[in-house]
């Protein structure tokens, strides 16, 4: 069954068009990740789904029922706000428990769920604090906790892990994934983190300027981007785009090669000078400048000893390269 169905959803703030004709179906139990550049309308879309904003046009269905007129409280959702929106007068515990109390859950259930969530989010030590006494990451975790204790059928997460450190982020990500499994709830998740998007999603929705660019399973999008935008947006560092001519392709076309698909090799198709080396520890990124002036990023596994200003030749497997036409569409 469809947990959520958006048909032709549009939203404008005055003259600013923020969402354009969004169509989307989310199956029950599905985990959908929204990605897209900053300001493309992800949060707005979540707010429309939650019922906090009216769609200017189009319909929103939750659980098969048209909910355009249904208030947020009755939509059976929980949401993590990008700006947290914690209740400033309540402690961490109170923030998490308020929704449950409102539902009239028995105390034991409330306590148990709050305890579980705060354990999961490593918030046990802070239960009695108020939001103003918490660090940024702790606040964010409270916001997550407040949403998950409610165990609704549809979760809306707006960049819930952006202020957490890597370890905690991984831990929480895994917790969310298992929660997803345990509750069999549908989740809609906005993130800028590639790892989160790739690992959590059943389906990724790529948005751009308020419109859907492509929808698909993570690896499908990664390997079969519909257009240059999607190709460039997924993957970090992002795909290199070179004029096809320089590599013997058609004029006007662009060839896209992912940084990890470039190797330093004697007989490479591309040659250039190393303009910059970024050593990340586990990876090394080289920025290679071709004589034509293009810049190409190369990702090398592990710690490369290569130095700046070295002359290199780069090879790639044409099978792993993508070709886009002048409009950016995949050829």
């Amino acid at each position, binding site marked *: 069954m469809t947990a959520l169905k958006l048909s032709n959803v549009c939203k404008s703030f005055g003259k600013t068009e923020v969402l354009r004709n969004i169509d989307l179906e989310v199956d029950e139990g599905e985990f959908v990740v929204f990605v897209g550049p900053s300001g493309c309308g992800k949060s707005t879309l979540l707010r429309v789904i939650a019922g906090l904003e009216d769609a200017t046009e189009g319909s929103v269905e939750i659980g098969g029922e048209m909910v355009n007129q249904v208030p947020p409280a009755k939509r059976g959702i*929980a949401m993590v706000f990008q700006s947290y929106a914690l209740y400033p007068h309540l402690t961490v515990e109170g923030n998490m428990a308020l929704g449950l109390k409102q539902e009239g859950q028995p105390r034991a259930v409330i306590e148990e769920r709050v305890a579980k969530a705060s354990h999961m989010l490593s918030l046990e030590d802070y239960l009695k604090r108020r939001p103003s006494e918490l660090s940024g990451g702790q606040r964010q975790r409270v916001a997550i906790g407040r949403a998950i204790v409610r165990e609704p059928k549809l979760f809306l997460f707006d960049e819930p892990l952006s202020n957490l450190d890597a370890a905690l982020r991984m831990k929480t990500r895994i917790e969310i994934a298992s929660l997803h499994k345990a509750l069999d709830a549908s989740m809609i998740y906005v993130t800028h983190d590639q790892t989160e998007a790739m690992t959590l999603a059943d389906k990724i929705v790529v948005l751009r300027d308020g419109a859907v660019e492509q929808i698909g399973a993570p690896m499908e999008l990664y390997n079969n981007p519909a257009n240059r935008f999607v190709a460039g947006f997924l993957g970090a560092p992002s795909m290199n785009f070179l004029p096809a001519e320089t590599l013997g392709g058609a004029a006007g076309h662009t060839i896209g090669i992912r940084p990890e698909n470039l190797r330093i090799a004697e007989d490479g198709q591309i040659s250039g000078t190393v303009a910059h080396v970024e050593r990340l520890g586990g990876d090394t990124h080289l920025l290679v400048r071709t004589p034509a002036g293009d810049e190409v990023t190369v990702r090398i596994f592990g710690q490369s000893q290569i130095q700046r200003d070295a002359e290199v030749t780069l090879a790639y497997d044409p099978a792993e390269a993508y070709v886009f036409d002048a409009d950016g569409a995949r050829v």
Partner: protein
Amino acid sequence: MSDRLRPRWHILVFLAPAVLVYTAVMIFPLFNTLRLSLFTEVEQERVFVGLQNFRTLFGDAIWSEQFWNALGNNFWFFFIHMVVQNPIGVILAAILSHPRLRFAHLYRSAIFIPTILSFVIVGFAWKLILSPIWGIAPSLLDAVGLKSLFAPWLGKEEYALTTLALISVWQFVGIPMMLIYAALLSIPEEILEAGECDGITGMSAFWKIKLPLILPSIGIISILTFVGNFNAFDLIYAAQGALAGPDFSTDILGTFLYRTFFGFQLQLGDPHMGSAIATAMFVIILIGVCIYLFGIQTRLRRYQF
């Protein structure tokens, strides 16, 4: 913010204009007057008598009876405001502050209009309406079949004070309303939205989210009501005269003070006894304010948005 030890002239600059004007034009004259409570006039001479005036005020049956009567009435007056005016004000503000309510500003202005009327008009209008003679209230009650409930309220000792308090409530509801309204406006929309997603809407949103966040403002209106009521004077004076009839049943500290200080009809003003009453009032109000400032305000949590 942190305490820093270096001189902070800006604090002085911020405080100076207010403190100067206020001290010169308000505190100085007031205390100059309160000082009079320690004096009395004998043969056109001002004589220092220490606490004699207070002894008269509290010890002399005639004075103390009036004083306690006025004080008691004042508490009742205050009580009515607290239980009627402020809740109504808060309710109206809560309804008005609903972000998507239409005509909200029209309602708001309409409800505020009584507050901007002068006491002369308020006194006149209500006396006219409640008058047993001209018949607005009786005929209105008649229209709903409650004619038997009518009584000449302003003229009956048992009702007069309550009636006046209710008129005052009617007039001043705009004040708590506006203050609470302003406080409600400053609650960030997102917090309420988060509440809505949590299923907290309507009444529970009010009780569980808005109310705790506007508690300091409720504190303020309570103390303002307290101070305002214990200083009240004009309405009663406009409606019942300085003798606060019937039989002093509407006499509150303000009218008692006015009558004594400035005199009334053949009664000559007695600034000395008047100041003694003013001092007593001042002390009562000061105690109330201190209880608020040190006992309540410091305990109220404020939230920053």
